């Protein structure tokens, strides 16, 4: 262990920690803020919110996105909702309960202090977004409406039809564009981060490539925020957008930022099953569907009857049977594994026998078709467009798919990585969800980080650097990084092999899904660890990228991202192999209860695994940040 993993958790009772921290932190006076340059990479919920807020406070902000508009970041695709401990329904919700649910839902692998802060801020987020004009669903009274979500027994999820992520992102995007108009934020679209520059152990800036012109450029700043999302696309088939990638956080890792819990990936239980080999991505159906839909498979193996021909007594509502208290609303990891178990047993449904039914017929009978249409209309339409089946008549077919990565850059309580001045927010950091994220919590975390946490903690970092200008971009470190970026591009373009980038990506995805997916074992992980490097060296020799680096070249962009995925995939397997326990989304078949539930080993693994880059070809070094649970008692999760 070489890194000093100081989590900087403030003292005091948990409910006061964030207030104490805010009071204890240094401030930058309004007239001094314009003297600080801040770079925000990514324009999703965390990035756009942080850039907009920092700009509004008066810092010189540059915001980078590889999209043609900040509004296209993948946060836009989140459907179901955002949690907040408002207790508007009077059903016993509170900050403490949201905190408790999140720690428990994360299978006790998250930092208590962070989660509590998240629960506190959830309330402010709803106020902020409602004031911005986010058209949340309303009751007839004009009050905000909520619904319930997996892993909880209260109704605390605010939503805007099935497009909550879109509406929240548009709110943040609009605030960002407001700041662009005001001149406080300089927006750089179609510009991708290709390296992070560190000088004297502190972040100095970034190197980017413009996707349309190929121009490689350096940007210096006092502080850099990475809000670049997660890395589910390492599996090729995931619910992430096609361009979502890990390059920014991976480059930071290679420059010295520790990577926390890389193996913690979430498999979302309700996605549309793959239909053929050409499938380019999987489409998620919001978890909110589980509120009214019932999940079942035929009791008969290999039942070829159409679902409406199968009588009730020959249907196995396996979630309701196994988990009577939570039923169809068990947390995602539990629901996913249960579906996989049914399909693996041979009770899968659909042409390829790769799904389970999600049935609305009871809900339609109880509530009427209109209510179901009002609640889920756009999801049902989307399903129909993709599958050509009408869920009002036949049950949906669903199957789990990779959806979210709880792992990410290790950050302290202030969201600073192990590189001073380099911060990470949203899905790009590892911080708040432990080993499993509850539904409707990703939006909450992205916005909490962006609107509230980063602006406060950045000031604390910057306050000490008032007299120091940022490292100029003519510093040799920038030249070196630029040269490395150009070399890498040149190398990819000159490989001249025979296979496309997508081919390699698909193969990598298969290795990861089969060996490091929903169920992992020493055997599969060891296998993956031998297959990935082999595929990677094949990639280096045999990939074919046409065109040049001086104009829009989508294969080249992809190739750079896939090259980083190869390295990350290895780290994920190493982490998964070392974590000899099952927890949340990380399920090791060697470690399960007699009923087949995940079995944690709190004695030996109650820590954050923060991996440190030690050079190409060397094994990464493991650093441990012990997790202490003072307020939530460690217990085997039970949703029965």
């Amino acid at each position, binding site marked *: 262990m070489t890194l000093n993993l100081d989590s900087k958790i403030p003292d005091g009772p948990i409910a006061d920690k964030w207030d104490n921290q805010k009071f204890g932190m240094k401030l930058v006076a309004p007239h001094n803020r314009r003297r600080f340059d801040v770079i925000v990479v990514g324009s999703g919920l965390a990035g756009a919110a942080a850039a907009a807020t920092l700009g509004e406070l008066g810092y010189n902000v540059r915001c980078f996105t590889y999209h043609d508009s900040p509004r296209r970041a993948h946060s836009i695709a989140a459907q179901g909702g955002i949690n907040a401990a408002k207790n508007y329904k009077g059903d016993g919700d509170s900050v403490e309960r949201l905190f408790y649910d999140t720690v428990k839902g994360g299978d006790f692998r998250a930092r208590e202090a962070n989660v509590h802060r998240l629960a506190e801020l959830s309330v402010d987020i709803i106020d902020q977004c409602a004031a911005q004009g986010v058209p949340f669903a309303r009751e007839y009274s*004009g009050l905000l409406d909520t619904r319930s979500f997996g892993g909880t027994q209260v109704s605390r999820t605010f939503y805007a039809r099935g497009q909550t992520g879109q509406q929240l992102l548009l709110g943040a995007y609009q605030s960002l564009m407001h700041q662009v108009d005001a001149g406080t934020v300089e927006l750089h679209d179609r510009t991708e981060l290709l390296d992070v520059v560190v000088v004297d152990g502190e972040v100095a800036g970034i190197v980017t490539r413009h996707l349309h012109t190929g121009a490689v450029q350096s940007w210096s700043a006092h502080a850099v925020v990475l809000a670049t999302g997660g890395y589910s696309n390492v599996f090729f088939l995931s619910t992430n957008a096609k361009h979502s990638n890990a390059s920014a956080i991976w480059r930071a890792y290679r420059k010295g930022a520790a990577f926390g819990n890389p193996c913690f990936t979430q498999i979302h239980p309700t996605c549309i099953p793959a239909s053929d080999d050409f499938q380019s991505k999987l489409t998620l159906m919001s978890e909110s569907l589980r509120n009214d839909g019932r999940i079942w498979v035929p009791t008969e193996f290999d039942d070829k009857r159409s679902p409406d021909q199968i009588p009730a007594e020959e249907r196995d509502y396996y979630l309701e049977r196994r988990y009577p208290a939570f039923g169809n609303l068990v947390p995602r990891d539990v629901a996913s594994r249960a579906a996989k178990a049914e399909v693996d047993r041979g009770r899968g449904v659909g042409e390829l026998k790769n799904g389970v039914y999600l049935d609305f017929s009871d809900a339609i009978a109880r509530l009427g078709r209109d209510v179901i249409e009002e609640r889920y209309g756009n999801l049902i339409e989307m399903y129909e467009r993709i599958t050509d089946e009408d869920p009002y008549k036949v049950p949906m077919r669903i199957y789990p798919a990779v959806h979210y990565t709880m792992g990410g850059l290790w950050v302290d309580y202030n969201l600073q990585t192990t590189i001073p001045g380099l911060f990470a927010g949203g899905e790009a950091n590892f911080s708040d969800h432990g080993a499993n994220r509850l539904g409707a919590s990703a939006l909450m975390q992205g916005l909490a980080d962006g609107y509230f946490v980063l602006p406060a903690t950045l000031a604390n970092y910057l306050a000490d650097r008032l007299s120091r200008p940022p490292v100029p971009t003519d510093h040799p470190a920038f030249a070196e990084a630029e040269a490395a970026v150009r070399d890498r591009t040149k190398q990819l373009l000159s490989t001249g092999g025979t296979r496309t980038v997508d081919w390699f990506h698909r193969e990598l995805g298969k290795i990861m899904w089969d060996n490091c997916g929903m169920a992992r074992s020493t055997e599969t992980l060891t296998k993956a660890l031998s297959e990935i490097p082999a595929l990677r060296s094949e990639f280096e020799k045999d990939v074919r990228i046409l065109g040049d680096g001086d104009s829009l070249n989508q294969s080249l962009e992809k190739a750079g991202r896939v090259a980083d995925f190869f390295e990350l995939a290895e780290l994920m397997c190493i982490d998964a192999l070392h974590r000899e326990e099952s927890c949340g989304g990380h399920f090791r078949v060697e470690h399960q209860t007699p009923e087949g539930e995940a079995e944690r080993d709190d004695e030996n693994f109650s820590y954050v695994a923060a991996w440190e880059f030690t050079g190409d070809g060397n094994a990464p070094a493991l650093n441990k940040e012990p997790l202490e649970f003072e307020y939530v008692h460690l217990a085997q999760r039970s949703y029965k």
Partner: protein
Amino acid sequence: MDLTLKVWRQAGPGTEGRIETYDVPGISEEMSFLEMLDVLNDRLIVEGREPIAFEHDCREGICGSCGMMINGQAHGPQKGTATCQLHMRKFSDGDTIVVEPWRATAFPIVKDLVVNRSTFDEIIAAGGYISVTTGAAQEANLTLVPKAVADTAMDAAQCIGCGACVAACPNSAAQLFTSAKLAHLNLLPQGQPERWDRTVRMVGVMEQYFGSCTNHGECHEACPKEISLDFIAYMNRDYRKAIVKNRSLIAQP
């Protein structure tokens, strides 16, 4: 099924483009339109020909990246569907499919089917927001929003900014895009203080780049979110009021 594809190919912003023809055999009905293009691109790369550049990202109809003119219709033949969610079952064996980029002066072509839609961001920057200092917002339930208002605002706010409305409009007008954002914010109580300035400024920027509305209704037909023409009327009304009304009295009934 076997298809013939005619695709607009253009190397860069200033260069000449042309339609090129490709045979695309063995396409499955389950594929999405973009997956069909993926298959073609994979083959082109293996054959040593440059793949077709096209924008895409989420592939679930929400990010608004993708968009192309398919057989003379923005986003192709299926109503209320973005290109990424258009599936090949909407075509038949032996079809010839013509694919062009969005065309409008305000959307210059970057490469092949990729166009630059930054002008949309400029319209938003000109007032497509409600100013709230972060952290200074009041308790959310203090502002009541009647359900009908929230629902209509949501109908408008669904816009994904793909540009199909402009592409489909014979005048390359951006009224549907602009009016959807205006309606989203102008309908809500939170949006009232900035309502009139917002309307004047956003319309002003829109008119710098885009054509005028002749009420054809093509935009609504092309819109993957089926945003209503009513919002264009609301915008016209608000603009009229913004110019004519005495704004200091506007809070009075």
